[in-house]
């Protein structure tokens, strides 16, 4: 692994973001709008339901967590798609970069992109709704880390699809998160789902993360098992995504997708 090359690819995206005000605005704008909207919804629920009586910020906190996941995943895909759109894909893959270096660089860049959007959104919640996500305490870090890993995992899976099937896979890139959202139990407890959906939900790390966030905020207790299971499933899916990426890279080399990318 070469840090110089990782830094080089990071710079490519850093220059791209810093050169364009609309891009920065895009990163900040949606999370802030999203959080504001969910802030008002959670305020409404807090005054009209008994379930959320004790924790006004539950929906808002979950919205922030979900947005972080969404931004990380989409951010990763965007970085990959950016190379295809700019017809720079071939240049990147004929540069002496190892797959690990490309992925590491994109992972770091995706994190920075997500934080650019998230930090202003978090800062907004306190003056607007009197809620601080920091109420989750030290476990906030583990929940964020878990979401970040899963967001990256989804990003790598979608990028594998782009490698294997070419730009036609782009539409799937946008819809993955929406496909998984119902099983993630982001805004509701898992019991809300039909049993068959619950089984699916239990093999995703999302349900453990959001269940635990609600548990901390509503019951003021910590169920370490949830954090543990989230990491186990993350490790599984992350390894699977890396393996799939390598497989797709080799498949693309056999099929010729790398040379025709962008056409």
């Amino acid at each position, binding site marked *: 692994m070469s840090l110089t*090359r990782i830094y*080089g*690819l990071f*710079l490519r995206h850093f*220059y791209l973001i810093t050169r364009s005000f609309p891009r920065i605005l895009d990163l900040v704008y949606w999370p802030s709008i999203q959080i504001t909207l969910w802030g008002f919804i959670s305020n409404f629920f807090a005054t009209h339901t008994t379930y959320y009586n004790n924790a006004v910020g539950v929906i808002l906190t979950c919205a922030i967590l979900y947005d972080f996941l969404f931004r990380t995943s989409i951010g990763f895909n965007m970085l990959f798609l950016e190379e295809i759109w700019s017809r720079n894909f*071939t240049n990147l893959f*004929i540069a002496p970069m*190892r797959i690990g270096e490309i992925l590491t660089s994109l992972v770091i860049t995706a994190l920075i992109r997500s934080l650019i959007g998230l930090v202003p959104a978090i800062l907004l919640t306190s003056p607007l709704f009197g809620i601080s996500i920091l109420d989750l305490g030290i476990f906030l870090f583990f929940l964020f880390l878990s979401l970040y890993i899963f967001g990256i995992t989804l990003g790598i899976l979608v990028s594998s699809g782009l490698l294997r099937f070419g730009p036609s896979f782009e539409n799937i890139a946008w819809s993955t998160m929406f496909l998984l959202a119902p099983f993630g139990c982001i805004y509701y407890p898992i019991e809300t789902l039909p049993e068959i959906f619950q089984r699916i939900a239990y093999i995703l790390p999302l349900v453990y993360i959001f269940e635990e966030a609600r548990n901390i905020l509503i019951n003021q207790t910590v169920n370490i098992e949830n954090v543990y299971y989230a990491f186990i499933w993350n490790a599984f899916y992350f390894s699977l995504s890396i393996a799939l990426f390598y497989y797709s890279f080799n498949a693309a*080399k056999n099929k010729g997708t790398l*040379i025709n990318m962008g056409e």
Partner: protein
Amino acid sequence: MKKNVSNIKKAIKYLNNNECIAIPTETVYGLAGNAYSDKAVSRVYKLKKRPKSNPLIAHYYSINYLKKDCEINDTFIKLYKKFCPGPISFVLKLKKKSRVSKIITNNSNSLAVRFPSHPLTRKLLKRINYPLAAPSANISTSISPVSKQDVVDEFGPKLKFVLDGGSSKIGLESTIINLIGKPHILRLGGINSKLIYKLINPLENKNKKKIKIKVPGTSKLHYSPGIPVRLNAKKNYQNEAYILIKKRKKLDKNYFYISKTSNLKEAAKNLYKTLRIIKKNGYKKIAIEKIPNINIGEAINDRILRASKKMKNLIEVKNIKKNYGKKEAVKGISFNVEEDEILGLLGPNGSGKTTTIGMLLGLLKPTSGQIFINNLKLEENRIKILEMINFISPYIELPKKLTVKQNLYVYSKLYKVQNIKERIEYLSEKLRIGELLNSITGELSSGQKNRVSLAKALVNEPKVLLLDEPTASLDPEVGDFVRTFLEEYKKEKKISILLASHNMNEVTRLCKSVLMMKNGEIIDQGKPEDLITKHGRTNLEEVFLKLSRSKSEFN
């Protein structure tokens, strides 16, 4: 006489202004600059395109001038008295207070010195108060010049002045002897090694160690005519230039005598001149009759041996196939690209050119067969190989929103380029993109984008460059600029280029040989002129049309 005096005055004027000029010597013509001036010697290196790691010989008028710069010993004095002024150079220890530019010694504490015997140059050296750094007046590794015309042919108007001293008397470079540690000969030349060893008593130096020193003119690929040379040839083959040392009864238009009477001194004098004539006449192969390895024959053989060093293949493709399902895109093709060669890859659309390039870049995995780049197997050394190759095509672009400078900086990082700033400056100057560095890449014209892409492709100083339609959609002027640049860059850096193009004039101009592909196979190959003759056509475009329209057995 008067003309000589005025020419010497002119020469001194140039030298005092830190310009470089060509001077005659009894060995070969030298490209001279003030050895005390960094500026002047840098100009010598630049004009000669010589790597700075290769030191230069400083030319002095006499031992009295030398004493200021070098430490001298008894062995040196013995040799000096016997052979100087003359065709012998000495490697001596440099004095700490020496004013000699560090550039010509490559920052070492030794200096190669010589006292030329050519009367004009001696007059010149006597009238200046500095030594002259003067390597042979030719582009690095090519044939040394032995007349004013040779120098003019080599540099053209780039060199402002040549001091004309007629033909060089000896015609081969000086013998170089290292006098630091145990004396030993580093390069055979104008003085026979036996005469030198006869004079030095080896016993008086038996305890001294042989010290390895980097000296001028000793690289393996030196004095090369850029054409394959066959040694000790008893006969020549068709279209092969044949260099002879004694007269033959049967005359052949391809015979070139360096002597008709086995006179080795005459042969030495005529060798470089003859090699230049052969090259000018467009011969692609040279055979040389056996030269007796005695007296100056030793030096002649040394030069011929270096000239004959084979160029290595930087690209070796062995029977590669590529299938997409049942479709055979490339059907087992093999070819090589030598160092310092441009090979044209021609063929109609769908003939397998892009697939072949894709496999060479590691973007496509061959179904079978092997690819070696610089002797490394691609499959096992992908990263190492990608570090030494690069590619441009009008179908791929650099990130549009970044400035040119940002793009070059990013790719310099990806290729782990050292001294990025210098590299970008160098490429900006060479490709005339200095004024574009802060422009947004996406806002450039096609011609500008093309030059920027070329800069990106050269950022890692590739040994192998793959070009896919490098001048497509360019106006004639920019197209010509790119072609000229590629020619010069290849000559300077000795890189291999594989050029896929549909512009037959471009291919004829740039390529030493071409491959014609059709339906995934190589259907013909050879030098453009040979293919034109073979197919009875007047130009390569007609050959291309004939081959691509033919319903051959390959269809």
